[in-house]
């Protein structure tokens, strides 16, 4: 008789069934889980139960967001398929069912086009899951502004004013202490032309007019600038495990380089009469959808507001709300096709019945 084994590592759970035919392994990662409870809803054997996620989130208690009863679990994988954040994964002989065509999976994606991206990092800053990394390569400063600079060492009195004034740290002096054999204040003065931006501050501030400098851009304009030299290049990276496809990057991108496809469509309704402004929903929401906007400057408001542009309709806020003030409806669940009638039916039942 084949039986399941369960292994709990910290808050992560692993249920296994090994037979001579195959090895089935369901792995749950608690740090990825957002507490939406979709797994518990779809489980055909009622093996999964969602915990008190509001309390777990707010107290930081050492408890998993879901529990799996290994005596009820049959390792079918139906929980892993619609998990919006891939916190659950079923592997058959070490291969994830998400890589198998016969198993349906949610149609969701997030990508940043390197052709369009200008590496402004707006998405990196806005991403509520810190899933985006923008690595940028800045243009060389010396190629953006050119000119000429010359210091007349005979006139220079080595006062060091130019060195102190230079905003680009391009001037460096090496002072020599006066001695009886050479009773003058002297120094080596060097201009780093890679750093110099020809702002002419040194020339203007020199008390003895020892510096001759000219900026080519100021004199002739930018005609000799190579457009390629002015470009910031780089690369973007989205951590798929952390990404929840919330759409913040898409909304905030100034050049439409980020594209997000969401698996669920729906509607989020707040019952302001019931809401007691405890803020649990704000804490649990993986997408920064919910907030209490300031009523006046510096004063935290108590009227809950939702920006549905960023909502993935996972329903975690509804689960966490202690006074049932939030209602999340799912009207569409987009997934790849499956020939299994039972999977089709269970997935379609994730839509809110009306």
């Amino acid at each position, binding site marked *: *008789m*084949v039986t399941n084994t369960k292994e709990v590592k910290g808050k992560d759970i692993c249920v296994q*069934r090994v*037979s*001579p*035919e*195959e090895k*089935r392994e369901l792995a749950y990662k608690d740090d990825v889980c957002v507490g939406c409870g979709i797994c518990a809803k779809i489980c*055909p*054997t009622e093996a999964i139960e969602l915990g008190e996620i509001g309390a777990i989130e707010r107290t930081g208690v050492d408890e998993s967001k879901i529990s799996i009863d290994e005596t009820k679990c*049959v*390792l*079918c*994988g*139906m929980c892993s398929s619609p998990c919006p954040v891939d916190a659950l994964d079923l592997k*058959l002989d070490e291969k994830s069912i998400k890589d198998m065509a*016969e*198993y349906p999976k949610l149609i969701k994606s997030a990508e940043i086009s390197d052709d369009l991206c200008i590496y402004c990092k707006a998405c990196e800053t806005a991403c509520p899951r810190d899933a985006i990394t923008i690595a940028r390569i800045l243009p060389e400063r010396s190629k953006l502004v050119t000119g000429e600079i010359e210091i007349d060492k005979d006139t220079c009195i080595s006062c060091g004013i130019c060195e102190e004034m230079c905003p680009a740290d391009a001037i460096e002096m090496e002072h020599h202490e006066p001695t009886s054999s050479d009773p003058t204040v002297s120094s080596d003065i060097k201009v780093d032309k890679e750093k110099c931006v020809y702002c002419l501050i040194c020339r203007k501030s020199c008390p003895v007019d020892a510096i001759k400098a000219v900026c080519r851009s100021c004199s002739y304009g930018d005609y000799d600038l190579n457009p390629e030299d002015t470009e910031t290049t780089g690369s973007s990276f989205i951590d798929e495990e952390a990404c929840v496809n919330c759409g913040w990057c898409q909304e905030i991108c100034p050049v439409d380089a980020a594209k997000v496809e969401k698996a669920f469509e729906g509607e989020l309704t707040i019952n302001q009469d019931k809401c007691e402004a405890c803020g649990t929903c704000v804490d649990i929401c993986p997408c920064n959808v919910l907030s209490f906007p300031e009523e006046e400057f510096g004063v935290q408001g108590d009227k809950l507001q939702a920006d549905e542009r960023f909502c993935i309709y996972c329903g975690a806020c509804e689960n966490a709300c202690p006074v049932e003030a939030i209602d999340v409806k799912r009207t569409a669940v987009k997934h790849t096709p*499956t*020939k*299994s*009638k*039972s*999977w089709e039916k*269970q997935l379609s039942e994730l839509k809110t019945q009306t």
Partner: protein
Amino acid sequence: MPKHIVSGLKYLTAVELIREGLSQKEVAKILEIDRSTVSHYLNGRNLSWNSIEVAEIITKFCPKDFLTLTYALLNDSEKTRVIVKTCSKKSYKGSVEESCIGCGLCVDTCLLNAIVLDDLKARVDSDWCNGCNMCRDVCPTDSIKILEVNNGY
């Protein structure tokens, strides 16, 4: 004693396979015994009639008991399959309803390897099913029906 019962079961299987037209060599290979042993079996030598009687009684157990007992005695999947299938006189047909979720519990349970998953749905291979009903018993969605198709002999 278990050894003798196994010999009895192999004897019954060898006789039946020869009747089905297999050569002694083929039978020896399938049952992993010497060809001379097959020959002895067929001549009624080197085997007590008691062993054969006990084996015959076992083959007439209900399909589940016959299968599980044989598997327990042999502890070998392939030989269990051959012996049980050859000595079972009845045919069965399994049907799987659309409510099947493709969990594969039946696949892992079936000692005769008669079930496979096709597009997240179990399919029972009637050629191998011996009607033990263990798949039906473990199915979490009650999706499997096993029916006897004729009474044979």
